[in-house]
């Protein structure tokens, strides 16, 4: 048994060219014949193939984030009856490249009061977990670096490392805006991690495994239909986890400068921004793998193409969300997570458990039946929760208690402090 990305023809060829492996999948040899490396060097063949694959995936994702930046700006322009960027290249398509080049040429300023090590490490720690996630996503049949047995839990765990990057950025900057932004961001991230994890349980009951590859294989009916409530909660939590509007209080321009990366400049700032867009692309990839049947499709298109095709509407939907909703307040965001989404996620777990109990190994028709029941549950529970949310008096908390304004205090705002 060799590395499990050998299911992919491209990497099988590279690996089999290099190694003298007796793996069955290498029986036909590579393009150049079999075994360029002497026997006993299979590990080197593995290393080369894995590095190559990781490099290709990372390059693709980073470039995709540039394309996404362009597409988002154009789309937002359309949503807001503007033209959007249109100067560089056809339809402004070179704008993100111009931005990237500009970022490279900018001076890198470290504030004098900053904790240099923490300040410099934060953007790296922000980026690396995102790039680790892309190793476990099945981008198509056999197109993955690693099919972990705990794939889904690994994604949830490794993305929680980005909270550390945010705290480090806020603390390292020694800047009020950065610290307040960081605290808000961490509160938001940890609050939405719970519904995110619990909303996946329904999917796991049907798939019977935490591995993303088996989750894709289990989707004879896409789980967005079988688990609509789980999808809704997961989608909202994903948008919150990647810190995008309407959940972008962490970098609320009107209040906090730019949030936790206020004091960053040059390439470090670029990394923070890029990490956000990379995270957007990766979370849409996770949604496609878990809820939209991954690379499964029909016709002549390869599975990788299907995967990317399915990512497009998800990304469009995320941009649409950003264009449609105003930014929520931090108290609204937290109560949406704790009083809304967690309850919905638990309802989903209960209903899915009962349904899985009735049909332990659902056939395709039983999956459709589950889908119908779950849609009913979705409609009833969402209406119940939202009418309950809308029924109370509109509360306006004393925001002076949120974060005390720094000295000097503008006139007209009451003192907060640590009262």
């Amino acid at each position, binding site marked *: *048994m060799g590395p499990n990305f050998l299911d992919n023809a491209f990497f099988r060829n590279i690996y089999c060219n290099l190694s003298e492996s007796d*793996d*069955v999948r290498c029986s036909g040899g590579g393009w150049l014949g079999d075994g360029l490396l002497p026997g*006993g060097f*299979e*590990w080197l063949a593995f290393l080369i193939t894995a590095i190559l694959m990781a490099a290709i995936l990372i390059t693709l994702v980073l470039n995709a984030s540039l394309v996404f930046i362009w597409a988002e700006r154009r789309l937002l322009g359309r949503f807001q009856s503007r033209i959007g960027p249109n100067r560089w290249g056809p339809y402004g398509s070179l704008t993100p490249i111009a931005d990237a080049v500009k970022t490279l040429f900018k001076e890198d300023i470290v504030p004098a009061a900053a*904790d240099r*090590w*923490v300040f410099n490490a934060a953007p790296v720690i922000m980026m690396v977990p995102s790039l680790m996630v892309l190793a476990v996503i099945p981008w198509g049949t056999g197109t993955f670096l690693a099919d*972990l*047995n*705990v794939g889904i*839990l*690994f994604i*949830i*765990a*490794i993305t*929680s*490392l980005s*909270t*550390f990057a945010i*705290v*480090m950025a806020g*603390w390292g900057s020694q800047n009020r805006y950065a*610290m307040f932004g960081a*605290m808000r961001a*961490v509160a938001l991230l*940890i609050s939405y*991690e719970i519904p995110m994890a619990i909303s996946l349980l329904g999917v796991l009951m049907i798939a019977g*495994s*935490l591995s993303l590859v088996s989750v894709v294989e289990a989707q004879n009916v896409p789980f967005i239909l079988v688990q609509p409530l789980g999808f809704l909660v997961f989608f909202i939590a994903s948008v919150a986890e990647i810190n995008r509007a309407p959940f972008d209080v962490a970098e609320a321009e009107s209040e906090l400068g730019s949030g936790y990366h206020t004091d960053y400049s040059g390439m470090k700032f670029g990394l923070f921004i890029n990490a956000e867009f990379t995270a957007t692309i990766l979370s849409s990839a996770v949604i496609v793998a878990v809820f939209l049947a991954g690379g499964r499709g029909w016709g002549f298109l390869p599975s990788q193409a299907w995967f990317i095709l399915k990512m497009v509407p998800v990304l469009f939907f995320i941009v649409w969300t950003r264009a449609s909703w105003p930014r929520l307040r931090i108290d609204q965001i937290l109560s949406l997570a704790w009083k809304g989404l967690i309850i919905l996620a638990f309802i989903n777990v209960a209903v899915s458990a009962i349904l899985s109990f009735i049909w332990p190994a659902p056939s395709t028709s039983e999956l459709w039946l589950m889908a119908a029941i779950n849609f009913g549950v979705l409609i009833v529970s969402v209406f119940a929760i939202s009418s309950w949310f809308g029924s109370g008096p509109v509360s306006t908390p004393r925001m002076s208690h949120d974060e005390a304004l720094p000295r000097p205090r503008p006139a007209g705002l009451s003192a907060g402090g*640590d*009262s």
Partner: protein
Amino acid sequence: MNGVEGSSVTDVAFWVVSAIAIAASIMVVTLRDIFRAALFLALSFLAVAGLYILLRAEFLAVVQILVYVGAISILIVFAIVLVRDMPGGGKDNHLKVVAATVAALLGALAIFVSYNSDFTNLDALESSNADVAAALTGTYDLDASNAVGDEYEDQIAVAPPEGAEGTEIGIFSNSTGSIGGLFIRDFVLPFEAVSVLLLAAMIGALALLRQRGEES
């Protein structure tokens, strides 16, 4: 059995990860800057997760990252940020002798236990312990699985992976599922007790909140 290269690579990985864990722990206790100490604590948790992976306990590893790095370290960082003017470092508390004594005793205990444990003879564990070890590590010995009986077969002893030859290292299986199997069969009472413990923890947290509310 792993190839020669494979095992030496895992050996190197073990030494690197252990070195990181120990170095980070030393930094935690020696650094004056309490925030950096918390960061190194998280790093050492992360290195321990790496050790779990090398033990093939991937579920434990992921849980280590999720709970210790993602939640407990964040809680510690929050506590640091909330306490007034902590980053300057704390004062000496004149308890150095006591602290050194306790640390020396604990260290001696750890050395004593690890010296007296027979790590080469893990196979001889009685079957119930072997279950736990198997579930945690995700490996399962064919003999042990026969000894436990049929009811566990679907839980733990899954079919060997395609192309795997021999079962000297045991059948590789899904450690998450095995742990679930143990929760709901052998360790039901501790499992339910956990929920009560978590409830108690939550009530404790709320007590903290209420005190705060009464003050202001």
